[in-house]
Structures are given as C-alpha cells and as structure tokens.
C-alpha cells in the first residue's frame, strides 16, 4: 500500500489508499513503521490523510491504534484528516473518533498540529 509521504514544515502527511483490512494490514504496518520512527523521532507530527481510503476493518483500525500508541510513547501526535463518509462512519461506530482527532481537511489537520505546517501547505 502506497502512503505518498508529503512533508509540510515540521509535519508529515501520509495518505494510505484502497482497502485497509486483514489482507493489507501487515503491508500497511510495514510501510508505515519507518515513517513513524523517523517522524516521531524527529518530533514531527503526522497527519493521516484518509481521503483515498475506501474501507477500514478492525485489523486496519488496530494499525492506527498502534501508531497512536507509539506517538503517545514518544511524545508525538497523529491526527486523521479527510476520511470518506464510509470510513468516517466506521470511526464513529468503532469509537475511534474518541481516540483520534478527526479533521475534515488536511489543511485543518495541519493547522491543528503546527501553524508552520499549515503555512507550508498554503504555499505549495
């Protein structure tokens, strides 16, 4: 699963696409981990841009939860942006909207984490 990493100042935007389920969750985790280690190690925030995600199962949600747990342990922060309606509903039903801050757009997510990142996004 491609994550299309895109840095904005001190914040990294990752954009998983397709279906995140039992079949793809290991691949997603493996792809996500180096970005998590690098960004959180450098005290950078992470935005998960979910606009390309068609579906997420419990196995996929677990990947998000593990990432959030790592961020918390390292004093970093991960937020979610721009989920499609189906994914937004699954976040609500699973109560993952209580674990993650969910923003309607990447711009708003960046602004919540870092004014510099939002400014960089506006300049792109």
């Amino acid at each position: 699963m491609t994550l299309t990493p895109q840095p904005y100042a001190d914040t990294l935007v990752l954009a998983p696409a397709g279906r995140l389920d039992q079949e793809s969750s290991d691949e997603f985790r493996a792809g996500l981990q180096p970005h998590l280690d690098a960004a959180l190690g450098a005290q950078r925030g992470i935005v998960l841009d979910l606009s390309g995600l068609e579906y997420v199962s419990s196995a996929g949600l677990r990947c998000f939860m593990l990432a959030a747990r790592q961020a918390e342990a390292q004093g970093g922060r991960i937020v979610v942006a721009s989920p499609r309606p189906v994914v937004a509903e699954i976040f609500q039903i699973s109560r993952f909207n209580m674990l993650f801050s969910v923003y309607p757009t990447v711009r708003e997510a960046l602004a919540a984490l870092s004014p510099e990142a939002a400014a960089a996004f506006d300049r792109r």
Partner: protein
Amino acid sequence: MRVRFWGTRGSIPVALTWRDVRDRLARALVKANGHDLDTVEKACAFAGRHLGFELTHTFGGHTSCVEFEPGTAPDPDQYYVCDMGSGARAFGEHVVARQSGRPATINVFMSHLHWDHIMGFPFFGPAYLREARIRIHGCHEALEHAFRLQQDPPCFPVPFSQLAARIEFVRLTPGVTHDIAGVKVTPKLQLHSGDSFGFRFAAGGRSFVYTTDSEHKLDEPAAAESFVSFFRDADLVVFDAMYSLADAISVKADWGHSSNIIGVELCQLARAKRLALYHHEPANDDTAIERILQETRRLEELTRADRKLEVIAAYDGLEMEF
C-alpha cells in the same frame, strides 16, 4: 429451535430508576395526546402500535442466562440453559410454573464461573425442589467448587447440601462434540481471565452459538479463523459485544470482552444468519444500547457481501425462533 433471553447484562444487574420510568411515562403521555385511550386495553394497543422500543421495553436487567429449546418437538420436561446469572431466578419461575409439579431435568451449560454467571443459582427455584434434576455442564475444574462456595456462609444462608434437587456436575472437554439429551454440544476455549468457554448447540437441523466473556485479539488470525469455524453457518450467534472496538483494544485490552465490530466481522466470515449483541456494558443505558444496535446494523450494511446478517440486541424477555 427457540431461544429465550432471561439475562443479557454484563458483569452486574442493572435496573431502571424511578427517573427512567417517569421520563418514559411522560414521553408516552405526550405521544398519546389526542388519542382516545380510556381503557388499559386501548392504551396497550396504542403502545404496541405507536410507541417505540425505547418507551415500551428495556434491555434490562439481569446478568447472563439464556435458555433454548432444541428442535421442533422438544421434550417438555427437559430444559437447556446457558449460565446461571441473575436471570436464572426468572427462568426458574418459568420452569416451576410450566412443570406444575412434574419432574424436570435442567441442563445447564456454564461459560465460566465468574460471579455474574453463577449469582442466580441460589435463587433458582428448581434447586429447592425434589422433583428437579439439575445437570450442570462445564469445562472448568472448579465447576462444583464455585457453586458450593457461593452457598456457604457468609455469602448465603442455605448451604448447597440443603438443596433438594438432584444436582450433578458434568465436566465437558473443549473441542469435543458431546451428545447431551438429544443436543450436540461443542465447547470451545475462549480468551478470558481464568478461561471461558463458548458453546455451539446443534439439534433438529438448527445451530446456536453462545459465546460470551470472550476477547478476540486482532493480531491472532489463527484464533480468529478458529472462531469463524466455530460460528460457521450458525442460525444464531449470541456474542459478547460489551465494549466499543476502540475500548476493547486500548484501555480495556485484556479485560476479556469484545465488541460489536468483531461480532459482525466474524459472523460475516462465518456466514452466520443472526448476530445477537449480548453482555451489555452496565454503564450503557437503553439509549446507548439502541444507538449501538443501529450503528451495528449500519456497519453490517456497509460491509455486507452477498448475504445479509440479521443483527439484534438481546434484551431480557426476548424470544427468538428459527
């Protein structure tokens, strides 16, 4: 096969408060405004037609106790019940009333021995009747000890030895299908503190899975596969949906319970026909459980492949036939 839910609440019994009753009554009165309801019969008919579950029912109530009748022509003197939570008191009244003094055999299947699953037994009427035979089945070594212990001082004034019924304890082997009074019974080990066991019951071409107090780890696909096999093509799966998925895998991980989302996923993979959300979180009121039910139905709709899974939330007094 017919299933009756006598106790559906997790961990500890929950009752409506006077404020709950008053608020329901007030909302019902507002809805009835302008209708000609000058008799109880008319009012009941109006309530049945025009008032929703949230005003006419409650999820309840008692802790775990689920009865089933196997097949289309069950032996009227044989009973089958899962767990002896506080719902067992009302179940006992049902047995006594229906038997009218005739001998009965009650086959009990114990998921585990935590207090909320045995607390109804001291109040189970048939235990005090000579004409009752009670066969308590389970996989735990401490099965008999747990039932005797809770009757002892200072917990209860009537010791086990004074119970009049003929009470037997029958150890079952997990993973083995046992033929018990005409029902095929297969226990399965589940993840819960001190172990718990789910049961798959099959009779008359129908099957029913009772799986409560069971945690499902998302990083154990082999375990998930084994539950999919256990649920395979079941007519009904009564499933521990105590927590949200977020709670079940974060702050309440290792607490031994599961979520509505895992229930839907496992039942869809198993091509089960019906999912009953069960072992409701005591902190959830009726409104919260109703919302969880609607959300779970929506999730099922979002994730449905070629076959609909019927989703219900079990409540005390619910009867299902399939």
